[in-house]
């Protein structure tokens, strides 16, 4: 217990990058206040209306509440790379989805300022039967871009993904690495204000991993905010200045990446 390394808004949350001492550095772009997310799970899964109606009549409809996140207070500054660590099911992805507007909080408040690019699951919007080219356009539309913007982006996306040879083949013929490359390339073509990355850099070969890391790094230097979920402590430590450790939907520790990782590791070896 007592691993509360809370150092919210300490001066050390300022990016080290001296060259980028820009006026907007101190502004808060992501803010979570007392946020909770509740999943309502029927104690038995009810699939059909018939079943629902019968149970409703018998008053046997029981719901089990499960709080995926509880009492989350978090504030992330512009230009910051923030890491999220924790075991599976701790609520890391749910937290990212709150910022991405996929989920609306059950309680509390989520405030996000800026254009968000979600890299939640690579190529979530890709359709296996459509070609890479068609998918880039469809995916662009899913991310809210207009057709004209996509015409302009197309070339660059395929260049970055290095997929010119396969761009007119259906995506089902792609390897998972190619799939991931196209996903990363289309989501990060234009620098977003906020980039959400969920454990996705583990796919793709090493050369592409380096390439994507370099791109994220350059986004951050240009003032983009990055929230990174990863099980790779090395990645968190190199990329992020601050981090938070989530455990069973609650923040166990928050502070500088090094300290939080240390606390997390200690928590793993001697739980409780």
């Amino acid at each position, binding site marked *: 217990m007592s691993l509360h390394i809370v150092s919210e808004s300490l001066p050390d949350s300022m990016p080290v990058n001296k060259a980028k001492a820009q006026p907007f550095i101190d502004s808060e772009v992501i803010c979570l206040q007392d946020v909770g997310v509740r999943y309502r799970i029927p104690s038995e899964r009810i699939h059909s209306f018939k079943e629902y109606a019968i149970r409703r009549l018998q008053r046997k409809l029981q719901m089990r509440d499960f709080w995926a996140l509880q009492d989350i207070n978090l504030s992330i500054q512009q230009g910051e790379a923030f890491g999220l660590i924790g075991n599976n099911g701790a609520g890391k992805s749910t937290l990212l989805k709150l910022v991405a507007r996929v989920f609306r909080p059950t309680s509390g408040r989520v405030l996000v300022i*800026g254009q968000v690019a979600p890299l939640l699951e690579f190529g979530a919007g890709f359709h296996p039967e459509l070609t890479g080219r068609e998918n880039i356009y469809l995916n662009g539309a899913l991310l809210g871009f207009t057709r004209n913007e996509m015409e302009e982006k197309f070339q660059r996306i395929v260049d970055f993904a290095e997929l010119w040879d396969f761009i007119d083949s259906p995506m089902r013929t792609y390897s998972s690495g190619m799939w991931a490359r196209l996903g990363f390339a289309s989501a990060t073509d234009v620098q977003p204000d906020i980039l959400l990355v969920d454990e996705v850099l583990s796919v793709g070969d090493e050369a592409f991993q380096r390439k994507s890391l370099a791109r994220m790094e350059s986004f951050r230097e240009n003032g983009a905010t990055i929230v990174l979920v990863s099980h790779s402590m090395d990645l968190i430590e190199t990329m992020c200045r601050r981090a938070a450790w989530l455990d069973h939907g609650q923040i166990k520790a928050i502070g500088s990446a090094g300290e939080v990782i240390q606390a997390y590791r200690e928590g793993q070896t001697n739980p409780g």
Partner: protein
Amino acid sequence: MNKISTAPVYDSARRVSPALEELKALFQYNNLVLQMVRRDILTRYKRSILGVAWTMLNPLGTTLVLAFVFSSVFGSTVNYAAYVLSGLIAWTFFSQATNACIVNLVWGGSLLRRIYVPRTVFAVSSMGTGLVNFTLSLVPLILVILVSGIPLTLNALLLPIPMLFLAMFALGVGLIVSNLAIFFADIAEMYAIVLTAWMYLSPVIYTIETLPPQYQQLLKLNPMYHLINLFRAVIYEGRTPTLNEFLISGGIALSTLLVGWLVFTKKSDEFAYRV
């Protein structure tokens, strides 16, 4: 560098009206609606040799069968083939478009768990695809009308109005059923049965005059009766609809759409948890 002041702000606590926000988001994502309609049309016609022709041949074939079977029963109806076909394509639009709402939203479910898209794009793009097919099926209708010797009047130019009303009504219904289908998987099956019954309760293959008087009044409670009639008025009867007919159909369409939109947007935040 006033980046922040121009950046979009999302605040989960400040929520004026989900219905209005959804409308705004839908306009922002208009390209997505276009892309989805495009995808639907492309995938539908890519595989068949006759392609677009099927959209026109299909109602034509059905009409031939119906005209042959029922002409003895409803023989008194003038130009029965044109009567059936006009009702049939309006009905087909309605049933296909509302069904597409269910299919598209359930398909889109896996997306809704991963990224943010306005939830109504699935229903709205279903209407888009439906309207394209609807417009294509006007070709065989006009053909049959000309062959039957029905004069095509200038009133046919009013066609977009009944079509718009039908689309609004279908969107309202589609939003409600697809919303239910997210929560209960068997709604799709139930809706198929409802549609069959609904079709026979609408004057698609018969005229209202063939019914006993007491049922005629009942039939007028069916919104599709008014919508189909307005459609038939301009193309089959070739007359200008009365103001009353416009108002009733428009009122039905608008109020259904409004109710559907409100119900759907009220519930749509839960979708991500459910699908």
